[in-house]
């Protein structure tokens, strides 16, 4: 990623009154920077304050006048099993969904290596899920996993007796439709990334290996996979980050019910802030999450962009 920059602004920018203006290049990033300030930086500072208060909008006290309770929010969070469970559940969802997505994507991409008629049509159909609005996808899965939905119908056709399992109100199994919706919607993206990577592979090594009589499995594991590693790591990183934020399918399918059994971090914070109105408490949780996420990302993001 080397760029040849031109040093400094154009000379005309430095004469007369205009030298009191910020330099031209700074002026160019200013609109973007200001937007970020208002929507991200200032709110992050507000979090620092809210996190040490017990502010609840229902108390009719403005948030900046709330009474500080210092670090009690963090103490409570540490012993709040609903929060720790939501964190563990989210990590579980990320690990399971992203690895299944990658496995399926690799398998699918291998089916599309050679040219055949209708190949492009097939690709277009397979990537359809990632094109639709996540809320609508979640809605479709809500209907599929309804007690009287097609999934239960298929099961009853197989076992031969009526099967009306209520997936979405079962404490353990309610997570399955949520994760399936996520996997269904985002495997296509992983597939596209892996396929792009495979198509861009240098063909010489693969051809040489074929000529030398290597088995397809050996070619895949010894040659293609190592060459694909940069693409795979980018795909894994991006999907992990996005899955970590999972909210839409949880909200549409269960809202964290029953009894918080399907709460992910985002759902836990939504319920805490906008159902129970414990804004200060949730700000403390948000602060923890932000610190962890940003520090992880700063470490991970650097190598990602080196493979341009």
């Amino acid at each position, binding site marked *: *990623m080397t*760029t*040849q*920059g*031109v040093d400094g*602004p154009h000379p*005309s920018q430095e004469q007369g009154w205009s030298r009191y203006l910020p330099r*031209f*290049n700074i002026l*160019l*990033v200013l*609109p973007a920077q200001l*937007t*970020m300030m208002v*929507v991200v930086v200032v*709110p*992050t500072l*507000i*979090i620092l304050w809210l996190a040490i208060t017990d502010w609840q909008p229902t108390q009719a006290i403005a*948030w*900046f006048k709330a009474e500080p309770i210092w670090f009690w929010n963090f103490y409570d969070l540490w012993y709040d099993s609903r929060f720790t469970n939501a964190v563990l559940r989210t990590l579980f969802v990320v690990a399971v969904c992203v690895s299944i997505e990658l496995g399926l994507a690799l*398998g699918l991409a291998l*089916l599309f*290596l*050679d040219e055949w008629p209708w190949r492009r049509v097939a690709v277009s159909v*397979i990537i359809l*899920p990632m*094109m*639709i*609005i*996540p*809320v*609508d996808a979640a809605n*479709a*899965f*809500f*209907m*599929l996993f309804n007690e*009287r*939905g097609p999934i239960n119908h298929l099961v*009853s056709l197989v076992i031969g007796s*009526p099967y*009306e399992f209520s997936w979405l109100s079962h404490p353990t199994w309610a997570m399955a439709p949520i994760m399936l919706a996520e996997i269904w919607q985002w495997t296509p*993206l992983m597939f596209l990334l892996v396929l*792009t990577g495979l198509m861009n592979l240098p063909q010489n090594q693969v051809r040489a290996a*074929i000529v030398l009589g290597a088995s397809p499995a050996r070619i895949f594991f010894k040659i293609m996979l190592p060459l694909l590693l940069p693409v795979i790591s*980018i795909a894994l990183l*991006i999907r992990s980050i996005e899955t970590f*934020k999972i*909210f839409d399918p949880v*909200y549409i399918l269960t809202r964290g019910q029953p009894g918080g059994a399907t709460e992910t971090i*985002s759902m836990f*914070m*939504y319920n805490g*802030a906008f159902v129970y109105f414990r804004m200060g408490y949730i700000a403390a949780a*948000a*602060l923890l999450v932000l610190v962890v996420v*940003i520090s992880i*990302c700063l470490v991970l*993001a650097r190598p990602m962009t080196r493979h341009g």
Partner: protein
Amino acid sequence: MNENPLWVTILKRTAVVVSMIIAFFPIYWLIATSFKPYDQWASWPPVWLTDAPTLQNYRIVFFPEAAREFATAQQGSLDYKVSGSAWKAFQDSAIISTFATFFSVMFGTLAAYSIVRFRTGGENYPFQFLTVRMMPPIAVVVPIVALFSILRLSDTYFGLVLAYTAFTLPFSIWMIRSFIEEVPLELEGAAMVHGMSQFRAFLTITLPLIKGGVLATALFIFILNWSEFLFALVLTAGNVITVTLQVANYVSASSGKLYGVQAAMGTISTLPVILFGYVIQRHLVRGLTFGAIKR
């Protein structure tokens, strides 16, 4: 690898067909349900293909009279949130998404240009924007609600436009940056030798060369804005309503989800993004990886 025996080829094609069916089935169910009459929405056994297709669900989405008629026919009270027409949601979503996309792409182009050609802020500067995409939006939603309440921005178009612009800026900056990097600097240099200022050289030489990319970025960001749900849910209180909110709204206190109506709204609301998605299919990979993987 064309020397595959026939059965391998058959197996591979079968796997492709099965994947296509799985990919399409939930969408099929959404569309199929949108044409089902009321008594088939959640009947047992479920109706896979209705024998009495109706446009009633679509009428309820767009015409409040049809919604009232429907409520009376079901002996339900008018607690259905269906009373408001979805036109308002489409209109609001169109306004918000268009303005947010415009600002995001404009600010993004300027910033990307500055970052590529002047290396503004140094090596690490673009990462600051990337970090925004990594933080869960819910984490900043609480303070944004607090901030917007004193700025009087909650439940306004401008509030949502601001939030959407900020959260799509990482995409526009990184995507457009990758397009600008593909244009050799020598082209601008040549124009500057002829006396153009560098910024004019950018506007007249580079920008026309990357306009396809900028357009793809704009469509990509429009899709993100149109599909956004969390900010819309939290930063509005009835005055502004987006299509995603309208989809989630079709829940009634007396009879649960209005499957058919919700499916009808879902089908219509998702059509524009599917269309845009296929238009920019070539650029999707670049967009979703912040320009890291190109085609």
